[in-house]
């Protein structure tokens, strides 16, 4: 770690202001950023902690029935407070990392980071959620732009995420054995007007929608509907833990299992 300053603003406005200074960087739960600092892979001059901003905390329902989650809300809080409204999302949050990670890590940090093996991106893309920042609202389909890349501008802060609540949903995660991030994770969400399927962990382009499965499942929401489909291994990640072929295969298996388990 190199030496740095830390600030803890109490409002979004103050945070945005603090982030305008040279070498400033937002700090969510620090579960990604702190290890990066320890390894001397990043050297911000100022860390702007978002943890004291009340307006970025908590889970609630909006008037139009969407589930709104403050961007500085921890995974543990989502696991607990979303359970009654959106079981698929609560289940996802409850399987991120371990208790220590869930008690510190935040949904905003996870989405800003956009690790290709992270869980939340599958839920956000799989529900067509909206990312709300200090400056604008970004549709999920526009937000994710490849591994570790998002639509966020320099200094832009995610303040909230709004999820349309599906009739049925589930997240099926096949863990990478060492890190227990998603080797392949599939979020399936069934709405009155159709099914969305988003896949994380598998592709070199980061989280993606599996459109063929969406069409098939919209017609018949059962694992059998996937029988005729297959996933192209081209562009899938290959590493110690999974070849492209294996990941492509797992996408189909996990999608089927998510459909079976959806509630």
């Amino acid at each position, binding site marked *: *770690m190199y*030496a740095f300053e830390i600030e803890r603003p109490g409002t979004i406005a103050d945070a945005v202001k603090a982030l305008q200074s040279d070498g400033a960087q937002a700090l969510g739960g620090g579960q990604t950023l702190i290890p990066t600092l320890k*390894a*001397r892979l990043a050297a911000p001059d100022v860390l702007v902690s978002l943890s004291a901003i009340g307006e970025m905390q908590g889970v609630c329902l909006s008037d139009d029935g969407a589930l709104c989650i403050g961007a500085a809300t921890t995974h543990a809080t989502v696991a607990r407070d979303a359970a009654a409204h959106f079981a698929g999302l609560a289940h996802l949050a409850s399987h991120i990392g371990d208790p220590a990670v869930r008690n510190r890590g935040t949904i905003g940090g996870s989405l800003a980071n956009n690790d290709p093996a992270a869980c939340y991106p599958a839920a956000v893309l799989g529900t067509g959620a909206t990312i709300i920042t200090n400056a604008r609202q970004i549709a999920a389909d526009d937000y994710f732009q490849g591994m570790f890349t998002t639509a966020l501008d320099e200094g832009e802060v995610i303040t909230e995420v709004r999820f349309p609540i599906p009739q049925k949903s589930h997240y099926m995660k*096949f863990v990478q*054995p*060492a*890190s227990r991030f998603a080797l392949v994770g599939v979020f399936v969400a069934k709405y009155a007007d159709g099914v969305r399927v988003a896949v994380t962990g598998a592709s070199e382009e980061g989280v993606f929608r599996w459109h063929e499965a969406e069409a098939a499942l919209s017609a018949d929401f059962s694992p059998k509907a996937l029988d005729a489909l297959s996933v192209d291994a081209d562009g899938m990640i290959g590493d*110690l*833990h*999974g*070849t492209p072929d*294996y990941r492509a*295969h*797992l996408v189909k*298996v996990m999608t089927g299992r998510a459909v079976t388990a959806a509630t």
Partner: protein
Amino acid sequence: MPKDTGIGASDKRREDIRFLTGAGHYTDDIKHYGATTAIFCRSTVANGIIKSIDTSAAENMPGVLAVFTGADFADVGGNPAGWLINSRDGTPMKEPKRPVLAHGKVRHVGDAYAAVIAETELQARNAAEAIVAEIEELPAIVDMAAALAGDAFVHDEIGTNQCFDWGWIEDNRAATDAAIKAAPHVTTLELVNNRLVPNAMEPRCSIGNYDAGNDSYVLQTTSQNPHLTRLLISAFVMGIPENKLTVIAPDVGGGFGSKIYHYGEEALVLAAARKIGRPVKWTADRTEAFLTDAHGRDHVTKIELACEKDGTFIAFRTETMANVGAYLSNFSTATPTFLHGTLMAGNYTVPNVYVNVKAVFTNTAPVDAYRGAGRPEATYSIERVIDKAARELGIDPIAIRRKNFVKPDQYPFTSAAGLEYDSGNYDALMDTLEKHIDRDGFAARRKASAARGMLRGLGLNAYIEACGIAPSNLVGVLGSRVGLYDAATVRVNATGNLSVMVGAHSHGQGHETVFPQIVGEMLGIDPASIDIVHGDTSKIPFGMGTYGSRSLAVCGSAMVRATEKIIAKAKKIAAHMLEASADDVDFKDGQFTVKGTDKSVSFGEVALKAYIPHNFPLEDIEPGLEETAFYDPANFTYPSGAYACEVEVDPDTGKVRVDRFVAVDDFGNIMNPMIVTGQVHGGLGQGIGQALLEGARYDDDGQLLSASYMDYTMPRADDLPFYTVDHANGTPCTHNPLGVKGCGEAGAIGSPPTIVNAVIDALQSAGKNVTHIDMPLTPLRVWDAMQNA
């Protein structure tokens, strides 16, 4: 009947109170006045020529006290290998120098070529970053076969990458070849014993102190054997006289072998402490642990089993390439040879065994003994090929093993690999195993699994190991450059309590609990009044430390002998006090009694008398009550066992779940069943980890791909089943006073083949023609194997 105190009782581990309440004293917890920090510059390439190292900027940075490079140690000695192995042609192994800091060349990622000493860690890290090393990268030598065939060398001065080409027993080679040629059935298996990272919870840490007034040094370090470290530093590396160097290993948070060895960082902190006249501390971070702790295993093996059609074994023949990494670590030449080749007859009466091991230098971290050390490699090869042979011949896997077991009336039994097994009863172990596993219910369980889409497999294994690593005579013949006895001093204090100074080192094993149970029972006193002192060369007698499941069998025996001497002397004192002849005095339950009378004195009264020798027959008895014994056993000890497990394989993902695991072991007599069970659990965790999860992988450039917990899979609680552990079948060791054999490594030795055999069984049950998968059996590998079958 389980006892509630003394030998055989499950006393709770007294040391756990301090470990669990944060009151332990690990090396990094030690704070010295004026302490400074050492940080190392480590190679990021696997193989390279050091063209230049510019330390000028670093030297002038704030807080920097000293900078060292390899040149500063060019004239001191190398860190030696402890065993000399001769090749088949009689030539000695190649022993390139292992320097304190790399000089001329870096030879693996993580190889240290410079070090900075500064007031604070931050200053040291900043200065280390400012050191500019020009290193010309060379192609990495990673694959062992390529290393042997190629003409680029890890150590140019030896002109080869082959450390040795060893044959065991060379005289049996021709007979084994002939037997295999003539055999009605030969089963061949090629396999890899995967490289492991030891992953002790506590990373290595060393503090050097120099006392200018006495020209003496103290090294506090994470070691399993402080005397060995002192000997290596004194006699080989730095030439500090042993009487001027104290080595202290305080609480140590796990070793698993990786802390047996002397490492360059220890020499560096001593040299630095002398240079700057202040204490110097280095604490490894987790990345350094991954890159530089001696790794384990890493064998590539071809094994053949020749047998009759009825499954009678005729011969085992093995060819192994053993990776020793970039430098020879202290035990690295013993592990693939005498801890592996000598066990290649397993539990069997097979008449012909021949083992060939080529040790190979590569641009990877040094490889050395890791929990089990050589014996897991032997067991894995033997028990995997037996399973394959049984399948080929259509013989039940238990029946084929029983058919070839050494029988109880054959002891002492000299195996075809040259060891003399003193005791055992492998059929009895198998009987107990069969009782536990409910084989009759397996078909129903398999069906129930199938109903959930899962493939269930049953895997079995029998193992034998040689431990209580000692007999100096034997290891001397086998090439050891040191003796392997151990020592203990029993000091009875005037007020009747005891300090027992032992050469073994406890870093999780529970010596502080078990050793007092034994001495307490022998003396008839409360174990709570006995404390074990270990880990400090200025306090303990010269012992060889803890590894190879030797602490109880070797050091515990020394302690028994010293306690016997205490009893003998105390009898004399008691006789004097009771005005009787020593021959007429009995000692029982802590009381000395004159035979046939009610005249008696207690052990405590005798102790007091020893130190207040008023009216003492000084010409017959010296004052004081303190005795030392060195113990060098007659043989290794030979624990054995029979293991079984059931696994479920998910055919859609390749994921393996261990459903149940039974470990039946013969450890001889048991001193503390709870601690033995705990040792087995720990070993099983590591063995199942090796089988399913763990694997250190280098890429072609010699970069360690699995260099953090993001990619190196440690076993976690939910990866492991509940175990059934049974060690009631003990056959006592015939040659040590406690009849004990050692239990520290068994779990890690017996479990990997058990698991792999079970997974193969599961896949075969689904009609998949999969005969072998290399460990770790990750979901990817299992799924891949199923696709190609």
